[in-house]
């Protein structure tokens, strides 16, 4: 399904989502992420200057969408327990609440813009006192020291903060595929044949398990492990290929799949 992103700018992380949903017919789980991304990148290119903030915010909403999509895909089946089911609803309600809040303040901001535009038609008189009253004016440098002047200068000249994305609500990816590969080439040769379940026994974040699975696939691709699965939904067995040397494995910087 193709999504046309026609709004000129999305000025908040929830704007895009809000927009897509408000255009009706779009259901979150049917949105093809790649088509949104493509459309959006095309949109960005049309802009004269690339607005870093806008682009980053878009990445955020894309991340949220990916996250929601993965949640739909990964729990996989009917075995999802009641808590998970509840959690998903709760999460959806939270997102709904945030979208509503976002919309509320977007509309309030429109009013502020109008007020500011009206007010900007008038310039205040800021001429100040006439010279003949100067001698009466309070001594405004009273108590100001050279150090105060220095601090004020530092404050005024300080670099503005660099923009960075707040990712607090996105699950941090604590391990990389490269790290997982390193862990596996240490562990598998020692274990001989081992189940994937065993390899992930002490992991509890789904993303870590996914990363480890990708690492297994990577080792398989490089021909140092063998994989066997006895039946559908059966345990996956992973074994070190006889004669393969852990040192042969190219440690990858990042998974490119």
């Amino acid at each position, binding site marked *: 399904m193709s999504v046309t992103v026609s709004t000129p700018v999305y000025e908040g992380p929830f704007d895009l989502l809000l927009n897509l949903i408000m255009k009706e017919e779009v*259901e979150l789980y049917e949105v093809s992420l790649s088509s949104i991304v493509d459309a959006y990148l095309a949109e960005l290119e049309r802009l004269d200057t690339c607005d870093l903030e806008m682009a980053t915010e878009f990445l955020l909403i894309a991340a949220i969408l990916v996250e929601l999509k993965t949640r739909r895909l990964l729990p996989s*089946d009917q075995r999802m327990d009641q808590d998970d089911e509840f959690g998903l609803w709760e999460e*959806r309600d939270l997102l709904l609440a945030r979208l*509503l809040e976002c919309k509320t303040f977007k509309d309030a*901001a429109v009013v*502020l813009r109008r007020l500011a535009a009206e007010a*900007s038609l008038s310039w205040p*008189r800021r001429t100040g006192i006439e010279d003949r009253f100067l001698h009466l004016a309070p001594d405004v440098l009273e108590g100001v020291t050279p150090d105060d002047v220095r601090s004020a200068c530092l404050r005024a000249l300080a670099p503005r903060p660099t923009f960075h994305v707040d990712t*607090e609500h996105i699950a941090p990816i604590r391990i990389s595929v490269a790290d997982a590969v390193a862990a596996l080439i240490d562990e598998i040769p020692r274990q001989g044949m081992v189940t994937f379940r065993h390899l992930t026994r002490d992991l509890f974040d*789904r993303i870590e398990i996914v990363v480890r699975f990708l690492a297994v696939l990577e080792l398989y691709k490089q021909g140092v492990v063998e994989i066997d699965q006895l039946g559908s939904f059966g345990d996956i067995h992973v074994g070190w290929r006889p004669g393969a040397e852990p040192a042969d494995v190219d440690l990858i910087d990042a998974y490119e799949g």
Partner: protein
Amino acid sequence: MGDDAPVADDEATGVDREARRAVEAILMVAVDPVPANLLAQLLEVSTASIEEACANLADEFEAQRRGFALVRVGGGYRFQSHPDQAPWVERFVVDGQSSRLTAAALETLAIVAYKQPVSRAQLSAIRGVDVETVVRTLQQRGYIDEVTRDPGPGNAIMYGTTREFLERMGLDDIVQLPPLGDFVPGPEVVEALERGLRSDPEVEETVAMVADGSAEGTPADADGAAAPEG
């Protein structure tokens, strides 16, 4: 002060002509809006009579179709150019008005205006992005400022709007903002959003294998990749 001038008398206002002249003179040299109670104190009259005098002066300037206006803004009174003279004043003013705020800045400003005092973390949570840059810009440009510290752990800086904000919005007091309730989306929007977020999962077999391998001992997905929290 000599006061036998042939000018419309102001018995009705409760403030004599001299007090009105004094108000005009003071506002002419003031840099910021002058609160009614300060004028009252300086002129030794009641605040109510100052308010009445200023309202009358404002009406008078308007009736005389002056190129300037006396307005109540930012908690006080000030002289300003008349809005309909903007095209001429623009020609004259070199620096122009301070540049316009971006939509992101305005939305953040709206949250501060309605939720103040509010911390940066709270703003970030609502906006869904880090607001450090925006907050700094708003603060540098005088729209918001640190007003207090969160008494709770961390003592987060709490931000609020400034008098400058009121002046730039043409408001006398923050309570003049339309109530936030006016902006809460109607039921049709809520419904549309709910429909959009409807979950209708379809299991894809390709990943079943992964899920299967990890099916046990993965209790923590509810928070691992959790949705944004408010």
